[in-house]
């Protein structure tokens, strides 16, 4: 699904943020990515999401060498990847419902087809009441849940989540973890960047740790 070999990344002329990162994410795997703040977790997820290219090393996603992927291939690949951004990136002028439905709308689906699915998912993440309101009136945790819902609505093959429980209470975090695990059970490969040690402990899944640009894998 995802393969990195000796990948390095630097921004501009700055220091190398990621150094010699190598790992493989097999289809159906579930992993955590952790490490101190500023270690490069978000940067690594950006690489996997194809929104940046590594400065060196080899990288492939869905079996495709990323250097061979052109701009016009991106939309279709992106529809197979779900992502939860650390800053959520919801659209302020659309309702919660429309924000969550956006990937489906963009993929050209008719609204009648996805309406029920979206409402069900909103109910699951506890946002049924907020379906019609705009994101700016949502609480921090509500925004985060909307972002998660948008990432998983299209049942992606690969799910990347950046700190998806930083703004929710432990009980809700557990519920969201169940959502991720359920998705994983249905075949989605999941990679979650998080600082939440409780979450990691609950899931009992392998953890990759980034520190000073190096990656360490622990079971």
């Amino acid at each position: 699904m995802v393969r990195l070999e000796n990948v390095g990344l630097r921004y501009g002329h700055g220091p190398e943020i990621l150094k010699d990162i190598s790992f493989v994410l097999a289809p159906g795997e579930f992993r955590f990515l952790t490490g101190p703040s500023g270690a490069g977790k978000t940067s690594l997820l950006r690489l996997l999401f194809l929104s940046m290219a590594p400065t060196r090393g080899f990288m492939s996603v869905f079996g495709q060498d990323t250097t061979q992927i052109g701009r016009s291939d991106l939309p279709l690949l992106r529809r197979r990847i779900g992502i939860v951004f650390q800053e959520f990136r919801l659209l302020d002028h659309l309702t919660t419902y429309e924000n969550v439905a956006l990937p489906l709308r963009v993929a050209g689906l008719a609204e009648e087809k996805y309406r029920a699915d979206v409402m069900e998912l909103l109910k699951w993440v506890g946002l049924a009441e907020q379906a019609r309101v705009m994101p700016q009136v949502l609480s921090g945790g509500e925004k985060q849940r909307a972002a998660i819902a948008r990432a998983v609505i299209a049942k992606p093959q690969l799910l990347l989540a950046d700190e998806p429980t930083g703004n929710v209470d432990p009980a809700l975090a557990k519920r969201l973890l169940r959502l991720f695990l359920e998705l994983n059970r249905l075949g989605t490969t999941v990679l979650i960047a998080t600082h939440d040690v409780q979450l990691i402990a609950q899931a009992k899944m392998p953890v990759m740790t980034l520190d000073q640009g190096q990656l360490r894998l622990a079971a």
Partner: protein
Amino acid sequence: MTDQASHRPEPIIPPDAAPLRTLTLAMAVMCYLAVLAAGGLVLINRSVEAWTGDLSREITVQIREIQGRNMEADLAKAEAILKTTPGVLKVTVLDEKAAIDLLEPWIGGIEGLEDLPVPRLIAIEIDPDNPPDFTALETALRNEVPGVSLDTHKRWQAELTRMARVLTTLAYAILVLIGLCAIAIVVFATRAALEANREVVEVLHLVGARDNFIARQVGGRFLRTGLTAGIIGLVLGILTFFLAAGAAPDSFAAIAQEFLSLSGNHLMQNYLALAVVPAVATLICLITSRVTLMRILKSLR
């Protein structure tokens, strides 16, 4: 809760951002000014046409007294020739008094003018759409009446044409200036409006929207903005013409009326000239937004 989904989905590019409102206003204003300039241009052209038309519609034949000829007979001969000339609508022989009256302001103080041999005049109205051949006419007259001369107001017409050229050049210059300014403002305002929606474009791209999909959304929004603004400018411009026509000097008002009236043979031409303005403005708006969008999209991965 579930009924909410039955609403029409929100437009993906929000319609009421402040920069988009500025774009609408800026475009409307520039279209308005351009319509004024374009309309002014058409008006000036039509006025010049009308003036020169009036002038070339009236010519004068002057017959000088020549020793040994009978003036009245010469006048009758000339009149006969003129009346049979195709393109001549009306022939009026002015009597001696009328001729002297015309001279009055210039030589009014001269005693004994009545006894002098004053040249006699024939006023002729011609069909401006089908004017007679002046040189042939003059030769024909000369053969019969030696003292004849034709005053076609050539000098006046040349003078007027020169002035008209200056006026139209000026109007064209102003139209070009306003056009350039309009393009600059529309380009900038469009870019600002799209920059304000950069986050929307980015998120659409990130959730897997194709460039074409985004371009359609953006294009639709800017098409609507451009058309709205252009039409507002056009309507206000035409309204201003109507108001100005009411307040302007008579001759101008008449032309303006004809220009604006929903009849007349210049109708299509006039209105097409004006309608080009919002069309061009919308096109600029569309092209700029497209180019800007593509630059934003190319900068994304």
